[in-house]
Every structure is written in C-alpha cells, then in structure tokens.
C-alpha cells in the first residue's frame, strides 16, 4: 500500500526494519476489539498513549483505559484553525491533533542531571533514567515516519541522545491507516502516508463494520483474547480503496517530486519575505512539528539545598536569540528565521540525515496563528526564484 515517492529509508537506525513487512498477516476483528487491545498493552506493562479528548481538542495523552480513547469525534482543520466537527460512526474518526510521539520520546522538558557543588567541585546526584515503556496507540502513518526521521537526528552513530534512546527502545506502535484526510494534510505528496508501510507493531485500517489488523510476525501477545478472522480478499480491497480515497482527498501537495536541490537555489526567492511579513515568529510550528528537535539546556537552582537541575527544554529556530553568540546574531531578521525552519525541513535535512524533515502532517498549518501554509511557501519559493544560487563571485572555483 502507498506510493513512496522519495523514501526516507537508507540509513539503518537499528530500530526500523529497512524493508516493508512482506509477511504481514491480515486479520479482522470486531470494532470493540480495540478495547481489548488497549487493555492487553496495559497488561504487558506499557503506558498507552493515544488520542483523547481534552479541552475541546484531540490530544495524544496517556489512556487510563479504553474509555479515554477519543471515538466518534471529528476535527475540522484549516490554516490557523482547529475545531471539533460533527459526530462520526467511526472509532478512529479524528486525524492529527497538535501532539505527536515527539512529546513523549523527546519530552518538552526533561531533567538531564542533578548536580551539587562539593568542595569546590561538581558532583552528580542523579542522571536521567526511565523504565517507562510507551505504546503509541492509534497514531497516524505520518507520525510513525516522523519517529523514523527523529531516529536519525537523535540516534546518529556516536551521538545517540540518552533520553530519546531510552524512551525509543521501549516504545511500540499501533498505527491507524488514514481513511480520511485532514484538510491540511499532504502526506501523499511526500510518500509518508496515508498508509503505513513499515515500522509498526500493528497497523489497523478501520473498515465500515470491522477492524482490519495488519500484524507483522511475532505480535500475537498484543492480540491475545481477540477473536480474529483471516481477512478476506474483499476486506483487503476495501481497505485499499478507503486509503486511496484519503489519498485523493488531500487538497495540499508539495508540487515538486524531490525539491531539496532546487530549494538551495530558491533561497533568494521573494516568497520568503512575503511570508515573513505575516509570520509572528511565535514558534508554534516548531512546537507542533513531529520532527523539530531543537532544544536548549537551562540550569535551575533549588534554593532549599543549592542543588542544580540541568533541564532540557524545547527551543525554536524562530526565536530571536536562538543563534545569538558573542560574534553576533546571524539570523536576526524574521525572514531568515522562518526561512531556516522551512529550508531545514526541505533542503538541509536531506543533506544532514538522508531524509526530508517534513512528513506532511499539516500541523504547522493548523496551529499557525496566522495560517501560514508551508506547502504554499515551498511551492512559491520554487516557482519564484530570483535567478540561481548566490555564490562568492570572485572565487574561481566557487
């Protein structure tokens, strides 16, 4: 299922198999079986994280039980807009809210270490440790690909991040293939959805009256106690058609097939200035982005005992002081900061990590307070180039 236009695969991270599951087994079960699946995950010691209605938004939250799962609610999204829509007969009825697994694998705030001053030196009281195992339940295929993208940034050989690595090693993924596209989705043009191809423990496609489970080998404990029937040809075809419908629904697209090279040349496009006039540099896009990893470490002193917590918090390349240093601020203007965000996803990321940094989830469009559409920016910059790449004219070999 799914057409991969530019594969994110290439570097072996050690977690994801590098090919799709050829021997996947397909079963169907009743719709109510997902409750049992959630309980099974809990019984196996997982903290189950899934879509849950919270303050009028479908968030990705810890599910205490099946009752916490957001079912039957739909979301209506537009640039700069998110609202709940009418009720739906489906179990997996909403698409992406603002959260992604990033918030759990690379938490917005995490204590890296606790230190005390000791005889003029520094002593480590405690370092980061976790035993928590997350089961991500009913995340969407784009978010699964986003985890794969994050693997490359946070688990680069020799530079593995210990926090991400600890959470990532324990995590499993129950992905739900999309049968409806969100209004801001564009995964189809990036080849990151609407169906998952690999990396999941179970993939579910919701059929009109049954759940279709795509189960790679060796995952039977997760489905224990669920009455499974082998999927019929008709059911498999129906699933394909539903996914295809979602693919065709997508109104947004990255128009160019592999834009990374041409993006460098598009750095002087007037599009950047035009978009930056609207950008508030608030950083919402980077917060909701499932692959944005930038962070900073702050020291927090406990006034009671003088100990210091070194806490890592998310940071954003949109913020003014992000690249400030003694030598000056190379990205002082808002245009340069917004351009950094987009160039990173579509030009730098492929060179740095061998994959695009965008998975087409559309969150940055929905949660931008002024509704800036990243697909319009990329397509616009590629369309309105001001002539080629600016080089150092005097250099003979430049």
């Amino acid at each position, binding site marked *: 299922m799914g057409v991969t236009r530019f594969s994110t695969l290439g570097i072996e991270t050690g977690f994801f198999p590098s090919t799709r599951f050829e021997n996947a087994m397909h079963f169907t079960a009743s719709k109510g079986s997902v409750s049992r699946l959630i309980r099974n995950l809990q019984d196996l010691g997982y903290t189950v994280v899934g879509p849950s209605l919270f303050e009028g938004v479908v968030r990705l939250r810890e599910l205490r039980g099946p009752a916490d799962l957001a079912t039957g609610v739909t979301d209506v999204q537009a640039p700069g807009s998110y609202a709940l829509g009418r009720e739906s007969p489906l179990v997996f009825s909403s698409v992406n809210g603002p959260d992604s697994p990033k918030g759990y694998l690379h938490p917005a705030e995490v204590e890296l270490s606790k230190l005390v*001053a000791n005889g003029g030196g*520094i002593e480590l009281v405690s370092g980061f440790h976790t035993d928590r195992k997350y089961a991500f339940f009913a995340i969407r295929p784009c978010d699964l690909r986003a985890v794969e993208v994050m693997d490359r940034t946070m688990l680069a050989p020799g530079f593995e991040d210990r926090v991400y690595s600890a959470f990532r090693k324990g995590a499993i993924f129950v992905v739900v293939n999309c049968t409806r596209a969100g209004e801001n989705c564009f995964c189809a043009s990036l080849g990151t959805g609407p169906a998952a191809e690999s990396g999941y423990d179970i993939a579910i496609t919701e059929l009109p009256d049954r759940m279709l489970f795509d189960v790679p080998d060796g995952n039977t404990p997760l489905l224990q106690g669920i009455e499974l029937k082998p999927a019929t040809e008709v059911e498999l075809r129906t699933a394909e058609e539903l996914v295809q419908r979602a693919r065709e629904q997508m109104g947004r697209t990255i128009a160019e097939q592999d834009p990374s090279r041409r993006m*460098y040349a598009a750095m002087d496009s007037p599009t950047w200035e035009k978009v930056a006039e609207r950008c508030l540099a608030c950083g919402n896009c980077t917060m909701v982005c499932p692959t944005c990893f930038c962070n*900073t470490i702050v020291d927090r002193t406990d006034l009671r005992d003088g100990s210091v917590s070194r806490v890592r918090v998310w*940071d954003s390349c949109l913020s003014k002081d992000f*690249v400030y240093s*003694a030598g*000056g601020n190379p990205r002082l203007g808002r245009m340069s900061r917004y351009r950094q965000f987009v160039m990173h996803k579509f030009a730098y990321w492929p060179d740095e990590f061998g994959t695009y940094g965008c998975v087409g989830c559309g969150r940055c469009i929905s949660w931008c307070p002024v509704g800036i559409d990243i697909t319009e920016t990329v397509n616009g910059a590629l369309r309105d180039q001001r002539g080629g790449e600016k080089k150092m004219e*005097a250099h003979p*070999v430049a």
Partner: protein
Amino acid sequence: MPRQALQAFTRGTVRGVKKETSDTFTLLFDLADCRSPADFMPGQFNMLYVFGVGEVPISVASFGRDSHLMHTIRSVGRVTRLLAAVTTGSSVGIRGPFGRGWPLAEAEGKQLLVIAGGLGLPPLRPVIEAAIAEPGRFDGVKVMYGARTPADLIYSYEYPRWHAAGGCDLLLTVDRGTSDWKGNVGVVTTLFPKAGIDPGRAVALICGPELMLKFSILELAKIGVPAERIFVSLERNMSCATGTCGHCQLGPLFICRDGPVFGYPRLRGFFPREGV
C-alpha cells in the same frame, strides 16, 4: 571518544589566570585533571560550565605545553563574565573535547598560512605550537594576525618564542595604530602581499570574525590559492556540542559535530551568506 566524555563534566581546577587584554583572559588548567594530550586535536573546543549558570563553547588554545590545558576567553556574556572572575584554585566543569580539528596532516611539507583575526587566534595557537615542536614538518609557517588595536593583541608575551622558532614568521597588523605602533595598520588581508605566499603550495587555516573570513577567502582566491587548500573554523552558539540541540546549524552542517573546522568547498553556497 568515550561516551561519558560527551555528557559528563570533569572537574577543571584553575592553576593560573592571565589577563590578555581589557576584556580577554586566559585560564590554565591541569591537563591531567581532564584528559591526556592524545585526546586532543588542534582546533577542537571544550564546553566550560559554571555551576548553576550554564555552559559556553571555548576553543582549546593549548594542550600539553607545561602540562596545561589552556582556554582564552572574552568576557562578553552571562557565563564568560563569571569565568572572568574565577581565581587560581577554584574549579569549573569541563566537557570535551568536541569537533574536528585542523587538517595538519594535509599541510605537511607545504607552506602553512595561519591567518587569525581577534579572538580567532586561540584555536590556531595549537597549530603554531605543533609547528614549533616539529621544525621542518611544514615548508615555512606564516602567521598573520590582526587585532583592533595594539592593546588587543593577545599572547604578546609569546611572540619572541614563536619568532625564535625556525621557519615561523609572525606578521602583525592592527585596524587602528597608536603613536608607539611601528607595525602594519590595516585589515589582516593587507599582510598577504608581505607574507611571501606561494599559492602553489600554501595551505591556509583561518579563524576570526565572519567578515574577516569572507575577505580572507576572497583575497586568497585572488592570489590563486585553491579552495581545496583553504580551511576555516566557524563559530555558532554550540549548546549541547553533540549535534542534537540545533543551535549551531549552518545550512546542512552542525558546527559542533561536522566542524568547527571546514574545508571551504564544503561551505560553498551557504557561507558566507546573510541570514543562514
């Protein structure tokens, strides 16, 4: 590099403090406290940590000479202002060393151009020390160093020793002279015609402010030094030093992990370029 070296602080006890200029100072640590000389390459940097305040990336100015680890720092921000106040016997946290250093092996047998502006000299100082330690390793060493005023020239107490060493020519310049300044006045590139550069066998190592880097590269290109033999050390605000915080990114490069020293061809297209 051992894993914990990336994440954990070692305790660096300050063995000496030297005032270099009005705002710049040098801290000397016992190298044995931290690492052995074999762990370092010229051009790398350490993260220095002030307890409860934060870390700053500072290039390694010397390792091994007199068993010292040396850092030269300009007092300019929150952490460096506190570092300016440390005294002999006190300690700071040290993480490192990080990054890729100068390609000295590639320069062996060739004319070595060491070009520094302002506080660009400390990361090049281990190169000068390496050249002095092994006369004949390079076919001539030209050190070209510029500062704003004569009072801003750092390491002036070392110049006689550097000069005395065979094959190491030191050329100085200042942007603004004083009545007792007899040397060159002008930007560092004005030293190029006086240095006897042989473009056919010169390898240039450059560190300094971005504008100085840009004009040095342009001038060297004009003389005929090919891009493949031009190396620069770049500065961004490295925060984690392990390629995961994103602060030091320049285009597709992490300065902390892929640099801070880069061959110029690798930077073409996005350095120097405004707003990248």
